[in-house]
């Protein structure tokens, strides 16, 4: 077992532990911070799996932007009002969660073969120098040459988000 495998195991375990902490913590701010830790573990996993672009973007978008939004929301709510009862309510909920997790796992295991991973796999040997820049170029090719239409659709989606935000927020302000 090389260094890479050890680090992968450490971060996989960390990601799982923090994810479990997120769903079992009652304090919402704690949960948000544990989620940040979980995301950082995921980012390290991506980097170790030769997808450094994804790792860095994970930190930039999720930890640096989405979690700020979450924290804003959580901090602006009255924190004392939430989290009185346990996160897990009864065996039914636990069983449901486990079933969903098993389904997702099965989906990943059987779906992994179908994903055209070769397009995104680095040209150089795994972990060779320059893998970061190569990774970016390959993602860019996939995104802008084959997926140009999807990319434009994302633009429209973002526009929808802007409009929705404005409609929701301004209606609140006017009332």
């Amino acid at each position, binding site marked *: 077992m*090389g260094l890479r495998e050890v680090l992968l195991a450490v971060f996989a375990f960390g990601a799982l532990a923090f994810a479990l902490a997120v769903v079992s913590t009652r304090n919402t701010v704690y949960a948000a911070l544990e989620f940040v830790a979980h995301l950082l573990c995921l980012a390290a996993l991506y980097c170790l799996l030769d997808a450094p672009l994804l790792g860095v973007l994970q930190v930039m978008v999720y930890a640096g932007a989405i979690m700020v*939004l979450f924290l804003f929301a959580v901090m*602006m709510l*009255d924190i004392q009002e939430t989290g009185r009862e346990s996160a897990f309510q009864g065996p039914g909920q636990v069983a449901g969660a486990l079933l969903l997790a098993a389904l997702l796992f099965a989906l990943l295991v059987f779906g992994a073969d179908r994903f055209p991973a070769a397009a995104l796999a680095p040209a150089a040997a795994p972990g060779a120098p320059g893998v970061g820049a190569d990774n970016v170029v390959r993602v860019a090719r996939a995104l802008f040459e084959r997926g140009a239409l999807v*990319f*434009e659709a994302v*633009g429209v989606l973002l526009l929808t988000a802007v409009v929705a935000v404005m409609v929701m927020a*301004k209606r609140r302000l006017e009332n």
Partner: protein
Amino acid sequence: MAFTVTVMGLLIFAAAVAANFAGMILTSTILGPKRRNSVKDQPFECGSLPVGPTHTRFHIRFYLTAILFLIFDIEVVFLYPFITILRPELGVTGLWIMGAFLAVLVFGLAYEWRRGGMEWD
């Protein structure tokens, strides 16, 4: 392997920062006094007694700023990989693809501006 080593280097660096932090705090804990009193335990609100709950609700505009930032941040994130292959591979076609994407978002920006989303009122 090289990249794994880079990740490890950064991790060790981060661990060393943590150790440094712990050391500084420990030194000040040893050297500093530990005298609690009721005044020190209170939040410092300019000498007056705190009134009302601390974690009250805040104005929606903070949330609005954060969500608009998020949208534009995602846009910037798309631009990074685009920029790296614009000159060597995409050329003028690339400019059209990105032009259309940006036009849609500039429209969003204009809408937000008109609706007063940028006013801190």
